[in-house]
């Protein structure tokens, strides 16, 4: 009997093995729960591909953009609102990865490991989500883009609230033209599932001169005393950086006003590869940003294999540099905010059906992108651009500061016309909003992007200005 009970100890080992297996199983459940529960086969949460268990999605004013009624996902009554807010709200199939219906699907259902889908069962739907954007402003911006593709983003550079995010082309989610999208040969729906503001990457063109200028202010002590000669191009090592005009001999501020490529190629060469790279790194190039659950496309700046000629081109925003529009908005926002970057946010608040707040937006500071003195000098320069070159009459009453860009795109990027950019902000104290506009193949920044920016900023003034 004694030997037997000694042998029985092996069963303790088996029992211990079983308990260890249970531990592994529990860990597997715990660590995969969010992923598994959010599968479209989960009929607690989905009907087909539609996330029926989500609560309502509202805009800044409380206007309902999407809600579940009797197990059916319904969207805003107004076709224009549905179209303009498509990319922030997202589709039900999850093609638009940064739309909150996809990026915040877990928060929208209120699913968590402890309670499972209990609240969805109890209330018939999950949590409500309020966006930071204003739907009417989005409609204005979407219309302002006209027939062109592109994006407009506006945020409060002091608080981080994104009040306007649109991406074009879009479609009416209530009448999705699936056939047209799938059989699109004209390019009308090119990149329709991408929110260009969060996920787009564009050649920055002359908007990058803001960054070259910042590097010059930090690294060249006599930059304001220097004079640059422009004969329509600037030769480097047998090649040349071409300018869009022939500007003669001009100073630093004037060179930025008229966006002289010859001058900025010379400035880039003076600043040098190392300093320019250091400046872009400080501004968050080659860095992954996430705004809540939304990942931004990563802006790229790389001079590791650049020749002197390439450095000249990089200084005027060509070469291999690519910028994400939201990232660009953060950079100009930081200039307006005395060098301190503020992280933009898209989700104002998430509340449960019994009124508990799950998430509330709060102002999050990013990096100190510029020193206070550099930011102050850049503020003067950007103001000077509008005052002395674009003209305040094109931004009536807004006291805008900014810079346009006309980004040449290689044929593989598609289209012959350059991308038109405008980035800037109002310097009025009651209107702390910064804007970025990109019009794909829209032509000149000044001729195409400024009218769009003005139209939307006037609407911002009507909404928030005093």
């Amino acid at each position: 009997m004694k030997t037997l009970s000694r042998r029985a100890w092996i069963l303790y080992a088996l029992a211990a093995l079983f308990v260890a297996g249970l531990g592994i199983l529990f860990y597997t459940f715990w660590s995969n729960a969010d992923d598994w529960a959010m599968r479209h086969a989960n009929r607690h949460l989905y009907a087909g591909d539609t996330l029926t268990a989500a609560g309502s999605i509202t805009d800044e004013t409380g206007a309902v953009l999407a809600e579940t009624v009797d197990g059916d996902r319904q969207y805003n009554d107004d076709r224009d609102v549905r179209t303009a807010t498509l990319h922030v709200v997202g589709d039900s199939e999850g093609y638009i990865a940064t739309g909150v219906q996809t990026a915040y699907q877990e928060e929208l259902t209120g699913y968590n490991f402890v309670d499972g889908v209990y609240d969805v069962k109890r209330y018939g739907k999950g949590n409500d989500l309020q966006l930071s954007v204003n739907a009417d402003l989005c409609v204005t911006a979407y219309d302002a883009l006209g027939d062109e593709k592109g994006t407009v983003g506006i945020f409060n550079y002091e608080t981080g609230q994104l009040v306007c995010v649109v991406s074009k082309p879009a479609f009416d989610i209530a009448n999705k033209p699936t056939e047209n999208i799938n059989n699109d040969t004209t390019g009308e729906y090119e990149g329709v599932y991408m929110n260009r503001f969060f996920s787009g990457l564009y050649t920055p063109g002359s908007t990058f001169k803001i960054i070259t200028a910042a590097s010059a202010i930090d690294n060249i002590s006599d930059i304001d005393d220097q004079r640059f000669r422009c004969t329509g191009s600037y030769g480097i090592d047998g090649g040349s950086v071409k300018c869009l005009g022939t500007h003669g001999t001009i100073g630093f501020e004037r060179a930025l006003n008229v966006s002289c490529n010859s001058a900025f190629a010379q400035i880039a060469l003076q600043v040098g590869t190392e300093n320019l790279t250091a400046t872009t790194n400080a501004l968050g190039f080659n860095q992954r940003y996430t705004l809540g659950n939304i990942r931004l496309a990563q802006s790229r700046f790389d001079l590791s294999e650049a020749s002197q000629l390439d450095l000249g081109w990089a200084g005027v925003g060509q070469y291999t540099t690519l910028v994400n529009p939201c990232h660009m908005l953060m950079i100009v926002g930081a200039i307006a905010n005395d060098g301190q970057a503020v992280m933009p946010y898209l989700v104002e608040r998430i509340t449960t059906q019994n009124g508990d707040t799950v998430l509330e937006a709060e102002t999050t500071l990013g990096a100190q992108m510029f020193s206070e003195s550099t930011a102050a000098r850049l503020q003067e320069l950007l103001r000077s651009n509008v005052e002395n070159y674009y003209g305040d009459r094109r931004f009536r009453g807004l006291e805008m500061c900014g810079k346009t860009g006309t980004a040449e795109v290689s044929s593989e990027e598609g289209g012959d016309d350059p991308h038109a950019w405008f980035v800037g902000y109002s310097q009025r104290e009651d209107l702390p909003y910064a804007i970025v506009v990109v019009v794909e193949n829209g032509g000149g920044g000044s001729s195409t992007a400024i009218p769009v920016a003005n139209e939307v900023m006037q609407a911002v003034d009507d909404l928030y200005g005093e």
Partner: protein
Amino acid sequence: MATKKKKATHARRYRKPVKWPFWLLLMTLFQLSCMLQIYINGTQESMVTLFTVYGVYIAAEWIYFFVFGIILRRKSFEIELIAFFLTGIGLTLTTSVYPDRAYTQLVAVLMGMIVFIVMLWVLSDTKRVIKLRTPVAILALAALGITLIIGDEINGARNWIVIGDGALSIQPSEIVKVAFVFVGAATLEHLQSTRSLTKYILFAGACIGMLFLMKDFGTALIFFFTFIVIAFLRSGDIKTIFLVCTAALLGGLGILTFRPYVANRFQTYRHVWEYSNGGGYQQVRLLIYSVSGGLFGLGIGNGRLRSVYAATEDLAFGMVCEEFGIIIAFTVLLTFVALVVYSIRYSVAARSTFYSIAALAASSLLLFQAALHVFGVTDLLPWTGVTLPFISRGGSSMMCCWGLVAFIKAIDVRTYRRYDKIERS
């Protein structure tokens, strides 16, 4: 003097028995709440059926405890509490998913309890056990042989005997599990004659071989595991056991090589998400809905896994997770560990090695089957489709489980004698 001292040691080994009236009351409340949830959800449309099933089951529990606890004044009831708790969960699942099969399952449960009591009586006398062992072995082999010849194939395994037009379907391999433990423990009672050991090895080999031919690999594995446990407890020869396991492993690999259809049954292993609408359909649903229930469950009738094919049998663990919650589901699994620990603790004080080996084999068989079910269906181990003891719907397996716990119950001397007498003597 010496015997007195020994007795005293034994008496001390019996820890104070749990206060069964408290636990019985708690369990009854739990089962009444299950009934109430089914009533509110309306998953069982017939109120008569609902109240009859729970009424009869709860009454059976109380009658059992009244007779054995108050009239016969037995004191230790841990094993019955576990069995009644698990059976109650299984009965709840069947009643709410298959309203028309609730009575059948209730009858199976009552028959299981009768099997339990009859088994306890049979086991009380070792002479009777020795007398019965050869007939039981022959009957077991006959049952498997007949199944192999006239059995029906359900879900890829030819292990069913269907009588009438599906009015009664029996799974002989379940009932043979009880016989397997019985014969194993009884044959080895009067050892160490090589002849009895050889006979048992032949018997085990025949059983496992026939299960293989039926393509019931899960059950074959359970039999093999039980055989190893019994052989080791008896011989303590770890080298031989190791050799047998290696041989079995090689044999298994050989079968996978020469019979590719066997391997095909396991092709989704660790890839269930890739086959989520094919071979991994049931497992993927199980994983999704298990985590949907959260720690506390969605309540009886609120789950979605119940609408997946064979949920109450193959996916019983997932149904418990989703509707009862992960806490109760893991508690259920831990009770199987408790049965093994109980058997080990009492094996020292058992009346003879027969009782020790029978209890250890039966409890580790249940634990092993629970492991195959849970880890298989959650894709941590290859899925063999075995049921979760006590919880999965099925009459044969219900009777088998009650039969097996009788072995565990029998190890405790208090099963046959009054506690106060043991203490006094």
